[in-house]
């Protein structure tokens, strides 16, 4: 059964979340979104339904955060909580329903980035951990790690410095370069600190995207195989249990089962397909 880092949210059932929650973490410019764009079609080709999600994509708070970041008066506590609102909206209305429907959820950043950013901004680590204790523990956390010396050229020669990625709200009076280095170094320290606490799978992000992707694919396959073995055993177990309790005629009359019911082991193959909203994003109904 799936678990959260603390008490689960009211009304959130954890017993039938059969999908897989795969987190891609890493600092800005480590290539997270590139990897997700490579992994998603690959997983779909293998027959898995995939939902991808990421920061500020919630229908509730995404727009509000973007608007707040355009101004010059977004405080640090406010910023931390705004992002928490965005996260929980996606957790409840996107991530959990998708897992329940047997999807693989690929998420670009998770609570770790949000906690690192808040801690670097002076928030109490205990406070921010308490807020995010409602989050689901993922099945895998791949941490794409890149040192600043490798990170810098990627940022400088592609999209250029960004106000928030450079932590300019933290180092007023410095230029973007100095601020970027200080901010990203502080984030890396925080990520490395969290790495063992939360069991990150450390991935060296310095090789080219294809090499990194091969590495990720290998690890994801292992994760999927491990669980399909489990669900094979579960299916055997379920079948034999039925053999013992039902009469022979009932067994032959029973329909062929294509999936394992929610039980101690989650089913691997998605059984239900939530409706697509036509944008390639899967829509789930709100209550």
């Amino acid at each position: 059964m799936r678990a959260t880092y603390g008490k689960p949210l009211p009304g959130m059932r954890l017993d039938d979340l059969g999908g897989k929650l795969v987190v891609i973490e890493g600092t800005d410019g480590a290539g997270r979104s590139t990897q997700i764009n490579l992994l998603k079609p690959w997983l779909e080709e293998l027959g898995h339904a995939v939902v991808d999600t990421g920061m500020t994509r919630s229908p509730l708070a995404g727009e509000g955060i973007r608007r707040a970041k355009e101004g010059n008066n977004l405080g640090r506590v406010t910023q931390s909580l705004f992002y928490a609102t965005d996260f929980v909206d996606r957790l409840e209305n996107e991530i959990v329903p998708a897992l329940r429907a047997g999807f693989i959820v690929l998420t670009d950043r998770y609570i770790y980035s949000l906690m690192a950013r808040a801690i670097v901004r002076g928030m109490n680590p205990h406070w921010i951990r308490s807020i995010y204790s409602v989050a689901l523990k993922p099945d895998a956390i791949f941490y794409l790690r890149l040192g600043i010396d490798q990170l810098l050229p990627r940022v400088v020669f592609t999209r250029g410095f960004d106000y928030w990625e450079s932590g300019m709200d933290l180092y007023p009076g410095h230029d973007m370069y100095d601020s970027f280095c200080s901010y990203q170094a502080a984030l890396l320290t925080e990520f490395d600190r969290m790495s063992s606490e939360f069991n990150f799978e450390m991935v060296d992000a310095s090789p080219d995207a294809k090499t990194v992707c091969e590495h990720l694919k290998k690890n994801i396959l292992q994760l999927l195989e491990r669980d399909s073995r489990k669900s094979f055993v579960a299916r055997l177990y379920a079948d034999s249990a039925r053999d013992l309790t039902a009469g022979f005629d009932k067994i032959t009359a029973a329909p062929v089962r294509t999936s394992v019911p929610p039980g101690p082991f989650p089913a691997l193959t998605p059984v239900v397909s939530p409706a697509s909203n036509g944008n390639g994003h899967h829509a789930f109904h709100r209550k």
Partner: protein
Amino acid sequence: MEIGSGVRIGPFEVFAPLQPAVSMIRQYGEHNFPGRLIVVEGIDGSGKSTQLSLLHKWLESKGYGVVFSEWNSSPLVKDTTKHGKKKKMLTPATFSLIHSTDFADRTERSILPLLKAGAVVLCDRYVYTAFARDVARGMDCKWVRELYGFAVKPAIAFYFRVPLETAIHRLLDARDGFKFYEAGMDLDLSDDSVESFRMFQSRILAEYEKMIPEFGLTVIDATLPIEVQQSQVRQIVKTHLDHAQELRERP
């Protein structure tokens, strides 16, 4: 790459010491600011806003620098809250978080700096409103209290205690019916908004009762005549402000 085996962060050092975002993350920080924070609490229809506005006028007439801050009024956040309420997309958790975001903005933007500057800050509803409502919606009591750990502890927190039926009569005299979240309709307690309001608010009242000893709320009997309540309020405020030497006067 092994974790904890001297992983290189790059050639750069953090050169500017990271400023903690005000040393505000103390549990209900007992700050020693020159200003004074006074808050009013109670369910809708308890008359707390009326009492606060009378107090406001009196403090101003005494020459104090007074500033008023209302629940759910952050210019940065309130549109998001409105959007969530209108589309009925708020769950107990996001309802809680978006209100804490609003409160955080008002704390960082106005409450803290004003208290530092020596103002009397008056808040219509404070963290206790969130504690009562969020717990009534099923959020974990400890989690919600942690969430607001950055809040400044008020000098006085008045709780205007009123029986539920009195409050409902007052409210229904002034308007017909309740809004969706106000009546706790998101909890599916009843299809009838007045009945739902009644059930939801009685949960909230129970939470307030628990908080009186927990946070030392100052209880005012809100069934008394307005003038009587106000004179009690002024007396209590006066004893607090007489000792406050550092308060700024209005220019």
